[in-house]
């Protein structure tokens, strides 16, 4: 990957839903009803909504696993209807909940599936598989020859992601990719995927029915309501601050204020000059690293019964010490509240 800023993601393409309708054969009501939204190139768009609201259908229309019955979808300006479905799918990464890994193929063979049908030669294939397994933290030397049954759920999910990335598609579709994982593993894989995405900047559509996951993963969130209608499409911040209607407000939850605090880190407060300098008297205050969210800060204040926390430099991975970094300042309850309301 060359250096590509978030503004001009190398190779990523925008996805435009243009009045898309999907009515399944024999269905009386559409599964997706007049969906219009644009996913900017290189962003993660989370489709969120209750069960049966058409998220999977919306996703599967992009790679034509479900054919649209009205409107159009364009990727990088080209209508998907003008492309041969097989070729279209080979240019789109696809990850599903139970990974859909082929149990009869090794990890390396699974990852190589699409490049292989694209006719890559052996050497290039092997290099690519090695590179991808390295990228998702499963070195080919150790894991390449195992079968999916010999991996943990989280590892399988990472192989699913590596496989979807194999032919370097500009677009990725992920249908509840982490839905089957336990909460701790899920957090882990989410973090890993975000770090990965920061490097490879694909355009991603990500289905979830977990608001916390959506807020964490999404640059934008599309909330669907029953009947396949789009209720709101906004950044997590706006969505949590200004829900478009009662349905969205209910869906994002009464604690949406708290959720919004997860979007800001103490480091952002520091950058905004909202920390007060630490005095000697503050030595007794609980202490938190600057990469923690405002929500963690608030939680700590509530737990410790204080109205401020000391903010420290996050511990560098290089220095190897267990101690915390130098103190950056003090975040007061008031500063957290103000930043959260902004």
């Amino acid at each position, binding site marked *: 990957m060359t250096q590509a800023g978030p503004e001009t993601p190398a190779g990523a393409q925008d996805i435009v839903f243009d009045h898309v309708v999907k009515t399944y054969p024999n269905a009386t009501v559409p599964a997706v009803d007049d969906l219009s939204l644009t996913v900017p190139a290189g962003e993660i768009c989370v489709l969120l909504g209750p069960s049966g609201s058409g998220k999977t259908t919306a996703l599967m229309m992009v790679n034509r696993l479900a054919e649209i019955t009205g409107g159009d979808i364009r990727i990088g300006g080209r209508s998907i209807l003008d492309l041969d479905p097989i070729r279209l*799918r080979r240019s*789109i990464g*696809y990850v599903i909940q139970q990974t859909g890994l082929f149990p*009869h193929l090794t990890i390396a063979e699974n990852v190589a599936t*699409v490049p292989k049908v694209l006719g890559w030669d052996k050497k290039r294939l092997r290099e690519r598989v090695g590179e991808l397994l390295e990228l998702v933290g499963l070195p080919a030397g150790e894991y390449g020859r*195992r*079968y999916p049954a*010999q991996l943990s759920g989280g590892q399988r999910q990472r192989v699913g992601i590596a496989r979807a990335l194999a032919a370097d598609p500009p677009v990725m579709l992920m249908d509840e990719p982490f839905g089957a994982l336990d909460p701790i593993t899920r957090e882990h894989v989410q973090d890993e995927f975000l770090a990965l995405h920061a490097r490879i900047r694909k355009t991603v559509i990500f289905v979830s029915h977990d608001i916390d996951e959506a807020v964490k993963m999404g640059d934008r969130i599309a909330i669907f309501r029953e009947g396949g209608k789009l209720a709101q499409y906004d950044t997590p911040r706006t969505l949590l601050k200004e829900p478009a209607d009662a349905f969205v407000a209910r869906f994002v939850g009464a604690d949406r204020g708290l959720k919004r605090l997860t979007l800001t880190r103490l480091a952002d407060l520091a950058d905004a000059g909202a920390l007060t300098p630490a005095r000697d008297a503050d030595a007794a205050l609980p202490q938190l690293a600057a990469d923690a969210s405002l929500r963690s800060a608030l939680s700590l204040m509530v737990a410790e019964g204080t109205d401020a926390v000391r903010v420290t430099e996050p511990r560098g991975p290089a220095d190897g010490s267990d101690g915390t970094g130098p103190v950056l300042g003090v975040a007061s309850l008031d500063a957290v509240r103000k930043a959260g309301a902004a």
Partner: protein
Amino acid sequence: MSAQPVIPDYGDPSACVARDATFCTDWFGDHWWNLFWPALVQHLELTLIAVVAGFVLAVVAAVLCHHKSWLAAPVSGVTSFLYTVPPLALFQLLVPVTGFSVLTVETALVLYSLYLLFTTILTGLREVPEDAVRAARGMGLTRWQILTKVELRLAVPSLISGLRVTTVMTIGIVAIAAYVVDQGLGSLILKALQSPFNTQFIGAGALAVALALAADGVLVLAGRLLTPWARTRRAA
């Protein structure tokens, strides 16, 4: 084979033969190359042709029925009906059409094999995890690629188990086919039934059993080799 007398030519009877013992190893050994071995090879040939032809037909039928599910009920009905007809009756029905020929035997054997093969293969295809197929479609594999690289590969354990029962069953029915053609271990048994001398009868029977066990063993081994992933799952 047809030159073979109905009552075995004893030649110079050995002590064992003269005693009319239940089983004479020396006689068995003496007639291995002119009697037992050719019959064993014929038996194997008749079986192989029937099982291979039946397997190909059953795979085609199962794949079609897997894609067009309305076909499954009628195909299953016809094959299970054929399976219920007693083998001798089926031979009897075919003789007026194809005569006392290998073709008659093979036709009957194939018709017999279809039911078990078709049922197990279709079950195998239906048990392929839906996720794997959806992922394969989503990645842009063609129908043919999904069938050959995913569905049939994952159905191998079912294919093997279908082949095992069918092969063992066919080896048994080939023995009855001696009523139609003078071939295989069945014809040795049939001829020996009319003689008081038991070695040929017991030897041929034992060979049929050994052939069935060996064929089963080969298939088990083939299944192991073709499904290395299945072993890891059990170990995992």
